[in-house]
């Protein structure tokens, strides 16, 4: 697919340069208009990100101006006294996403390994399709299922977590708390399920394009499948795999509805992962229509700005890592 794409783009390039000289000769005003018109629309799409950023800065300015840097590092979120600090939600977002990645990365690796190395050919397509269904299910369905089905079930497991993981010295405090089912850990698990398809499909794609010659030479030396995966495939695809992980992280950070249903929506920090918490996205979803004062509303928009900046950085990193792979791929082909 990418091979024919490269061929097409090469000859297209020729077309474009020929076309450029034709336009210069003044042969067609309509062509000029078509080129500039579509270019203008593309430009509008490209500056949308910038527009989002500017509008959030403008709308959040009141809060940022009133609280300054303290907005990012204080934990008070009190609409009554008009004091707003984002730290609880920033930590909530980071912690729930971190739990999600801890679960999703190994699972996605296993799935990608199964599809690319172990699965018989006929099973590849169906398994990929089923895993990708996870990405098609809307997040509100995850939220409903999480709140009404998964959380009650998970609440039965939490006493066990309390007794066993909670007894470990040091990290035990993370796993002590009332078994309510909802909370930071539940949100992390559901987020993990939601980002698995994104990470797994990128891993699968890059595992499948690892040059067979590399794999076969390792097999010929007597390496086992696991050794090939660990010492040949993974080093070869490291950049893209990291990119895929960052892409999943970007998704997890901004996920709203599912988290709003199951994180518990408590505006305070607690050491235990079993306790309810809140993320940036969940607090915006919950409180935005109730925000009565302009400072309150502005603080929520400033929270949106914080979320936007974090996710754009993560997604840009992901994209850059994935682009590097594409560049080496194309370099090898031509």
């Amino acid at each position: 697919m990418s091979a024919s794409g490269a061929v097409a783009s090469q000859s297209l390039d020729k077309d474009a340069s020929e076309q450029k000289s034709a336009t210069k000769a003044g042969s067609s005003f309509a062509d000029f208009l078509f080129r500039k018109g579509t270019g203008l629309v593309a430009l509008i799409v490209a500056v949308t990100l910038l527009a989002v950023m500017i509008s959030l800065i403008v709308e959040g300015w009141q809060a940022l101006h009133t609280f300054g840097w303290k907005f990012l590092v204080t934990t008070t979120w009190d609409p009554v006294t008009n004091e707003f600090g984002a730290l609880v939600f920033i930590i909530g977002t980071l912690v729930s996403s971190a739990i999600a990645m801890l679960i999703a990365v190994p699972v996605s690796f296993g799935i990608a390994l199964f599809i690319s190395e172990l699965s018989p050919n006929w099973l590849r397509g169906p398994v990929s399709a089923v895993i990708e269904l996870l990405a098609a299910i809307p997040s509100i369905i995850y939220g409903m299922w999480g709140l009404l089905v998964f959380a009650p079930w998970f609440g039965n497991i939490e006493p066990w977590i309390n007794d066993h993981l909670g007894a470990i010295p040091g990290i035990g405090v993370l796993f002590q708390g009332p078994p309510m089912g909802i909370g930071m850990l539940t949100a992390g698990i559901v987020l993990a399920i939601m980002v698995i398809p994104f990470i797994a499909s990128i891993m699968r794609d890059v595992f499948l394009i690892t040059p067979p010659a590399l794999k076969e030479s390792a097999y010929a030396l007597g390496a086992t499948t696991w050794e090939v995966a660990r010492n040949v495939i993974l080093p070869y695809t490291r950049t893209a795999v990291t990119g895929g992980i960052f892409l999943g992280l970007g998704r997890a950070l901004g996920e709203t509805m599912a988290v709003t249903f199951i994180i518990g929506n408590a505006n305070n920090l607690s050491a235990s992962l079993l306790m309810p918490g809140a993320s940036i996205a969940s607090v915006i979803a919950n409180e935005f229509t109730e925000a009565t004062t302009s400072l309150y509303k502005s603080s929520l928009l400033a929270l949106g700005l914080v979320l936007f900046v974090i996710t754009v950085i993560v997604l840009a990193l992901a994209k850059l890592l994935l682009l590097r792979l594409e560049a080496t791929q194309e370099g090898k082909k031509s």
Partner: protein
Amino acid sequence: MNSLYLRRQLINKINMFIAVLMTIFGIFWVVWILWTTIRYGLPALNLHLFTQDTPPPGAEGGGLRNAFVGSIVLLAIAVVIGTPIGILAGTWLGEFAVKRKIGGVVRFLNDILLSAPSIVIGLFAYAILVDPLGHFSAFSGGVALALILIPVVVRTTDEMLRLVPGSLREAAIALGTPYWKMVTKITWKAASTGILTGVILGIARISGETAPLLFTALNNQYFSSDIWHPMANLPVVIFQFAMSPYANWQQMAWAGAFIAVVFILVLSIGSRWLLRRGGGKS
């Protein structure tokens, strides 16, 4: 030597077993979630869902008519705004900017927009349409959805146009066809299945979006067709009803969820099928 060999074999077996386990683990969630929607959604289906509007708290009966109609209106606004913009921008990328640096930059920004949190897109729509106008409106919700639809369409249009063989373009140009005519009559036609797939996938993606509608289209207990005022829509009604303590509201939320999931799965499986069929032809 022999023990080393056995140990390597053992490690291999264990890790491969874990990989199979992880795959089953992934499939397990799909089955569980879909099974839940069927189990609770199917019994809650009835004809009143389509003929009656959302009931007030505590009242018996009622349906989701206003929410269905509202969702269709929102999707229509998003498609009408988003599709032309997406296709034109994608055309520029796929026809005029294939190997140019500026094309790479636009592609990069578009891909980030594609994965940007939908709630932030909702805040943007609020900032540019709800705040200045002074009230929530279905139109602002449609614009928010369009902003999510556009990057999907841009990306597929770009990719599909790049798959069109260059010889097709050369043949048309050699006959003296103007470039714009070549694009609209030849390459768009050759890539039409792919572009259509992109639009369908985009619709599948936005029809379940809830977060950007919470503070744009808001919700409306009554039937409304006025796009300049708040309008009921399926995702927000599901959200409100699922979180409520009333049993009949929760049941209706499951029915709505079931219908939404079926709609989205039909769209995404349908577009996959369309792409495979179209891909086989070219």
